[in-house]
């Protein structure tokens, strides 16, 4: 686990030793229990330990996924990060500034211009059309009608709902409704984008489609993202980094690759068991140093599974290219086969 002192303070969002206990007189009780109370003692004191001693840093431009089973405290954690609820203890920095010290007016400003949120059950206003919903955050800010509708139209088109502007939420399918939710959260061009289980209420096929859509959007927008999910596969697919939560605490955080290759606890190992290594391991970790010459070219950042088809023409070795385009290593057929068969 990351400890509080090692967190970079230049990250977009930092949580330091953040606690949230639900129940009466939570603050006093937590202080009385000492620096690192056992979960059992908190429960005995009649409190619900929703978030415990969380340390994390979300870096500019990354997709930070928080993964955990139902009730593990994920929603509580995002609500803390956006200060919808106040932490019982700890510190939250946004752009290096203490978010908890911001006044009500400052919070309103920050939320209006710098944060966006997508909700699990879409949270669309039933009396507004698609366009009205997407323009809603702008309307609240007092943006003139012409301008907000023009911007909302752009967002609606961006999420692929062009032509449905005048539909009401209940006339749309779940997937379409969530597209509206996404468009709305993007309308204010937020710096930090929260998505709380955005696809959990959707059918598996639609969910897959929405994940692809989400990746496409991110490749264009390059936002800083906090993404919540209870689905480990979804986390692996989307994340730059993952934090795994259990009972309110983060049990491990790292890249998908790190987590799959070296799970910190048995709890995490349970999730990783069904994940094929080749879909997580990047070429960069599987390659060997350059020796001789090799044909083809595969990116360092591709997963092994993505690189595998390039061996179909009989090649034994492929050249690997780094970010700049220079050859950084060689990928051998034997290693790829081993990883793919090893599951």
């Amino acid at each position, binding site marked *: 686990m990351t400890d509080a002192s090692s967190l970079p303070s230049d990250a977009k969002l930092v949580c330091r030793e953040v606690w949230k206990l639900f129940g009466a007189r939570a603050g006093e009780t937590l202080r009385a229990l000492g620096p690192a109370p056992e979960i059992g003692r908190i429960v005995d004191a009649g409190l619900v330990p929703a978030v415990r001693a969380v340390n994390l840093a979300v870096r500019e431009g990354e997709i930070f996924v928080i993964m955990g089973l139902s009730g593990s405290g994920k929603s509580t954690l995002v609500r803390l990060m956006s200060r*919808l609820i106040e932490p019982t203890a700890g510190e939250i920095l946004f752009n290096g500034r203490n978010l908890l010290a911001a006044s009500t007016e400052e919070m309103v400003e920050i939320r209006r211009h710098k944060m*966006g*949120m997508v909700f699990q059950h879409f949270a669309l*206003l*039933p009396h507004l059309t698609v366009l009205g919903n997407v323009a809603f955050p702008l*309307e609240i800010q007092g943006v003139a009608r012409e301008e907000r509708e023009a911007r909302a139209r752009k967002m609606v088109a961006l999420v692929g709902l062009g032509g449905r502007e*005048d539909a009401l939420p209940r006339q749309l399918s779940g997937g379409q409704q969530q597209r509206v939710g996404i468009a709305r959260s993007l309308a204010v061009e937020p710096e930090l984008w929260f998505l709380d289980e955005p696809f959990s209420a959707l059918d598996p096929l639609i969910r897959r489609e929405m994940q692809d859509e989400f990746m496409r959007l991110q490749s264009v927008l390059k936002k800083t993202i906090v993404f919540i999910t209870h689905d480990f596969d979804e986390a692996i697919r989307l994340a730059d980094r993952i934090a795994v939560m259990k009972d309110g605490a983060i049990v491990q955080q790292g890249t998908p690759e790190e987590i799959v290759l070296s799970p910190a606890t048995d709890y995490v190992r349970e999730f990783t068991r069904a994940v094929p290594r080749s879909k997580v391991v990047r070429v960069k970790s599987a390659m060997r140093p350059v020796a001789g010459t090799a044909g083809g070219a595969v990116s360092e950042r591709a997963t092994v599974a993505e690189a595998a088809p390039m061996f179909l023409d009989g090649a034994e070795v492929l050249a690997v290219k780094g970010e700049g385009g220079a050859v950084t290593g060689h990928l051998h057929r034997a290693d790829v086969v081993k990883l793919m068969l090893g599951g």
Partner: protein
Amino acid sequence: MAEAILPRARTWPRWSGWVLALGLFLVLRVAGKGLAPWAFDWPKAQTVPVARWISAFTKWLLNEASFGLFTFAELTRFIAAVIDFPYRIVLSLLATGFLKGQGSGAVQILPPLAWIAVIAVFALIGAWAGGRRLALLVAACFTFIAIFGQWQSAMVTLASILVAVPLGVAGGLMLGILAWRSPLFERLIRPVLDLMQTIPVFAYLVPILFLFGFGPTAAVVATLIYAMPPMTRVTQLALARVPGELADLGHMVGCTPRQMLWRVMVPSARDALMVGVNQVIMLSLNMVIIASMIGAGGLGFDVLAALRRLDFGAGLEAGFAIVALAVALDRLSHAAAARQAGSVQGGPVARHPYLAGALLTVLIAAILGLVAPAVQTYPAAWELSTGTFWSRVVEWINVNFFDFLEAIKNAVLLNLLIPFKRFLLGLPWVGVAGLLAFAGWRLGGWRLAVLTGSLTVLIAVAGLWEKAMITVYLCGISTAIAMLIGLPVGILAAERDRLWTVVRAVIDTLQTLPSFVYLMPAVMLFRVGDFTAMIAVVAFAVAPAIRYTVLGLKGVDPRLIEAGRAMGCTEGQILRRIRLRLALPEILLGLNQTIMFALSMLVITALVGTRDLGQEVYIALTKADPGRGLVAGLAVAFIAIIADRLIQAGARAARARLGLGEGAA
């Protein structure tokens, strides 16, 4: 006793407590008269003069009370002015026209809206809310009113409603929002709301009459007080039920508290709020009719006057007009609630075609009205009066069936009503209080016991025991008959969907009718007295008995019925052993509602000469004695509360016994 004969039984059977309690009660009833006469009749000299205190308090309020900056009388005058102003305008618009000058010397400077224009406007509202069919229905209802010569009265009634409804909705909305925001405020008003829903409407009228005087303003105040509590409750519930995600959304887009309330919470709760609006409309109609006793005028006054003259024809005609108005308003508000807003582009006329159409019609009708008076006022020559026809029908019935009807009435009176009344009047109040407290203890613990016992004692102490017993007797018999009708009808309807559709349409319509309307036919056939009151009460209270029985039976898990069939139960066994048993909690709630309906109607039947608490309120009303009226009203409320709490506790116990989970009742 049973447990003495069975020495092996270690624990006493559940009912042994009941046997003991009833035994004690019986001993008191038989032997107590000589030993403790005070247990039967609370000594007159010891009566606590609550009524006098309240009357004195109201007088003090009116004459002396002051809040520093202004006096109480000034406050009531201010409220009256606030209500009076819009009322005058609406009344002028609909009925009297705009007048200049006072009394008989007044000159009309602007006529009221033409009758054709009013019909057209309401039809347009119908078209806007629900399409062409609704427009036709509404137009038919209003035309009916015009044809049968009830236009003027109906417009007076409508004016009161049009003023009371927006005020009631706005007031209820505000109180509901406050209650939703502040738990403290919620805790403060909850008991007040509970009490207001159980105090019979008549009882409100007395203090209002006292504070606001006789006239339409007082009637609107009464209507507001009557219609606001349900709106408050609906608002609070509706706001509390808005999904938390929507509140989060509001915060995340940076809403100010005001934007949060009006842009997010209230619009999201719209559907539920519209249910409240519908309730306010229907309750206002009901109350405006009843408030004719304190000067509301309009259709209610026509019914009341006809009742006093025993002019059935006129009464029935006004009654039918009330029904037409009720149907039109109910369908309109339902359709408006269900209407889905869409957005339309274009200029002001294109965006509001109905509004533009309505304004145009009003204008054209006004201009045409100058030329052709028939457009302005419905010509008297075209009116159909069915009054004499109905009077003749009643006469004919009375001539041909008098003996028959009289025989029924007398048989029921002699064999059922009077013996039951005697029995109840002979009960010692101490014993009744004890028995009710015992029932409370068995069903809901000592808190309930204290509540039921002390409320009973309070009734006796206020010197209203005898009148209360008459109320209980009429209410009890009416409820029993309503249940005897409601259960079988409900059982039949629960199995036959087609029948249920018909029955539901009938009881839905019955429930939209103001309670006053029920009196007319009953009086026509049986003239005044307890029997007439009973018929009216049964007719009014049978709807919930049917509805809850059907809902309960339909709610029974079909797998259990199949299981019963698989075990070889006959249909009769399935009905008795499975369906009725599992539907019991629901049926008990139906019983509860039936009692509440019966009590609220019973008070109104004072008009047809009962001798119960309702009569007490009625007398207080004619004497403008607020203390007497309120105390009697509270006594009715106490009876309602005792019945309500005991039955709710019984339903909860039944639920727990059947393993249906702790459903909130």
